[in-house]
């Protein structure tokens, strides 16, 4: 750790942020010293991104104080935060592709002459100076669209340096970088640290956190779980802080004797999205797919559902090789997909509950040319009761329901198809704890009724809670497959970070 002054660069005290129905941050404290790399950890949904958005002025906190170099401040908006020296480097790049590097770096504050024209020479000179500090080997005039992702990220960082940055937040900066590019990024971060900038580093990857950070803080379920000096802790302790001790008790303990293999996948590949994936799912079994965002899990689901065409490999349903030509084909073969994003992919929000639920089979519910009202209502009533969907009437537009009830409509829609294989992608994203529990119970019930179920989730407790087997993926490849008896949090975290069992042992 480098030298630091007595006053921390940044202190957050008792930050509370609520959204309708959710307490996203519940009294979070965080202290970042000048000249340190402070890692921020937590599961998906623990509140890291919300906290950083509060810091960068994108959200206003309901309670709590932001203290910058000993002075309490209010961040009106991101520009205001930047002017005060707090810069957020986003997970997703937010650059204008068609403009030059210099224009992007000084976007919104281009230097101009007294006539109002852009002062190109000043702009390019200033930008080149910043790029030199970052050891970038491209110049200010380059078009952003001509740069690799890693270099575009450098442009994002260069943006941060146009002001006298006191705190720079990196949100999952290495998600799309190659190993060589990471080295360059880490050098830049260390360089910023040496200059006395306070750095917040958000990442899921333990190896990066332990090699880079000086201290680390953990969030869980929107509340602060403590801060450790990195050198004085280890992955085990941090994992426990992130997940909580209750985890081990929440493992699935049902032992259903699985039936015949319903779905088998051999060497399935789809371009760069995933490679050589093989697994099988039996009737009565829940197989959990766990991994980081972008590990290729959703893409596998979409391939099985006919939305993507595999480039290699075979899919077998009940032992018979099949080619799935599209969603309609997948549905007729008994595959159902509850998609990742219920609002974009799962529901027509303006339509009624009933109409949404019967949509995939509407063509089969006809008497003569007309859709049979009675048949539709019968299906809706059946799954409303079975899934305990709370809606004043089937006529209610789905958009007016709570997230949990919306998700149940999507699940009901696909159960009503009586699938052989049910794929559920992020079944509980964005819904409250109570509804989560119900949906988990439902998934277990479905398996015990003989469905072959695949659950894709980014939440470890969820995967452990519902699965009979867990498949860990990293960057498009299956790293390891666990039975529920042998899986531990540690081994799972290692597997989804790309550490194979032979290396880990």
């Amino acid at each position: 750790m480098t030298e630091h002054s007595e006053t921390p660069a940044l202190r957050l005290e008792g930050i509370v942020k609520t959204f309708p129905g959710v307490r996203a941050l519940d009294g979070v404290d965080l202290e970042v010293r000048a000249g340190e790399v402070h890692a921020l950890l937590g599961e998906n949904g623990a509140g890291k991104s919300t906290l950083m958005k509060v810091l960068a002025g994108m959200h206003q906190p309901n309670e709590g104080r932001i203290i910058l170099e000993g002075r309490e401040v209010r961040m009106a908006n991101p520009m205001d935060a930047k002017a005060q020296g707090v810069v957020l480097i986003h997970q997703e790049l937010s650059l204008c592709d068609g403009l030059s590097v210099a224009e992007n770096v000084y976007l919104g504050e281009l230097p101009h002459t007294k006539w109002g024209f852009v002062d190109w020479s000043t702009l390019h000179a200033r930008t080149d100076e910043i790029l030199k500090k970052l050891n970038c080997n491209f110049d200010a005039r380059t078009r952003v669209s001509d740069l690799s992702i890693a270099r575009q990220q450098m442009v994002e960082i260069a943006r941060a340096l146009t002001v006298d940055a006191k705190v720079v937040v990196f949100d999952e900066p290495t998600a799309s970088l190659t190993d060589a590019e990471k080295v360059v990024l880490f050098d830049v971060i260390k360089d910023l640290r040496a200059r006395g900038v306070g750095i917040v580093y958000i990442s899921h990857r333990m190896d990066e956190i332990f090699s880079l950070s000086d201290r680390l803080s953990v969030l869980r379920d929107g509340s602060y779980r403590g801060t450790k000096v990195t050198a004085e802790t280890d992955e085990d302790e941090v994992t426990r802080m992130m997940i909580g001790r209750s985890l081990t008790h929440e493992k699935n303990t049902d032992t259903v004797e699985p039936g015949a293999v319903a779905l088998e996948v051999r060497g399935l590949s789809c371009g760069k999205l995933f490679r050589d994936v093989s697994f099988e799912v039996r009737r009565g079994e829940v197989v959990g797919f766990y991994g980081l965002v972008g590990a290729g899990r959703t893409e596998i689901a979409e391939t099985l559902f006919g939305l993507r065409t595999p480039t290699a490999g075979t899919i077998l349903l009940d032992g018979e090789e099949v080619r799935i030509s599209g969603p309609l084909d997948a549905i007729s073969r008994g595959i159902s997909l509850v998609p990742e994003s219920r609002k974009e992919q799962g529901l027509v929000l303006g339509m009624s509950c009933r109409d949404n639920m019967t949509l995939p089979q509407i063509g089969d519910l006809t008497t003569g040319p007309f859709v049979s009202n009675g048949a539709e209502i019968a299906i809706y009533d059946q799954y409303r009761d079975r899934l305990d969907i709370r809606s004043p009437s089937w006529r209610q537009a789905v958009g007016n329901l709570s997230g949990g009830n919306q998700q149940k409509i999507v699940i009901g829609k696909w159960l009503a198809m009586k699938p052989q294989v049910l794929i559920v992608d992020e079944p509980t994203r964005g819904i409250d704890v109570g509804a989560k529990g119900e949906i988990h119970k439902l998934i277990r019930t479905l398996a015990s009724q003989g469905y072959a179920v695949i659950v894709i989730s980014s939440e470890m407790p969820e995967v452990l809670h519902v699965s009979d087997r867990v498949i860990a993926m990293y960057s498009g490849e299956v790293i390891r497959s666990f039975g529920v008896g042998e899986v531990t949090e540690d081994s799972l975290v290692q597997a989804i970070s790309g550490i194979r069992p032979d290396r880990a042992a």
Partner: protein
Amino acid sequence: MASARLKGIGSLLARQGILIAFALFLLGFAAFSDSFSDADNLMQVVRQSAIIGVIAIGVTVVVISGNLDLSVGSMLSFATVMVVDLHDKIGPVPAIAVMLVAVLVLGCINGFLVGVLKLNSLIVTLGMLSAIQGLTLIYSGGQNVDIADQEATWFSLIGRGSFLGIALPIWIFGTLAIFMHVVMSTTAFGRRVYAVGGNPTASVFSGIRRTHVVFAAYMISALCVGIAALILGSRVGGSQNNVGQGYELQVLAGVILGGTSLLGGSGTILKTVIGVLILGFIQNGLLLLGFAYYVQWLVTWVVIILAVWLDIAAKRGRLLSPIA
């Protein structure tokens, strides 16, 4: 839930607001013009609205599917010129058949470009608007066409005849409206159109073939234009090359006034019928009050903009957008 209900009431008020304004217009017209509330005049307005109405039925299907069709005006010119021109050359039945096939081919082109190639419907149909106008002039060589002996052909009855005291165009308009309303509200096809317009991605994830649905919507729109061309060609007994010019905006005005959202996924055929009739009555009333015909252009668009604003204001619960 309470806020949803409030929103419902708000949007109902906005909807009623248009109807109330419409009622005030009608009362005003009735008070100041002796002939407006005359039964013959009212019937005439409905008959005159039939051509726009028939086209608006097809365009409503396209709009519910989440797309636009601006090519209907010039498609109407093309179809009318063709059916009138061919009438004397090959006889009425073949002429009608050839014309219907021709508009369906144009509908196919729209459907292919928007449905299959997924191009922006505004650009595609705006381009088709101009392309079909060119096609019409190429076909006719710039000459206006007419039917030589209009008294001698049953073709003239389509636009001029009547049955049970009601003009045939009204019968056609009414029958088509009821038929398409039933199709849209009770068949699987109708449901799919609403789903695709409401959320194209979710529709694909539900096994709906979006391409087919959009394609079919444009075919329906083209077919409706063909039927409208029968009424128009028969009524006039001849056709100018640009007879349908500006119809696309009148049609769209009726659809919007009826309350069908241009974003897709909502609206009904019946609403469009009401919208088209409102438009017809306002324009007729203004004429009877002695305003020049171009005044109706102005008033029509003021009414439409007001309607759209009220609709949006009711949805967001305030008159101005919360985001600057």
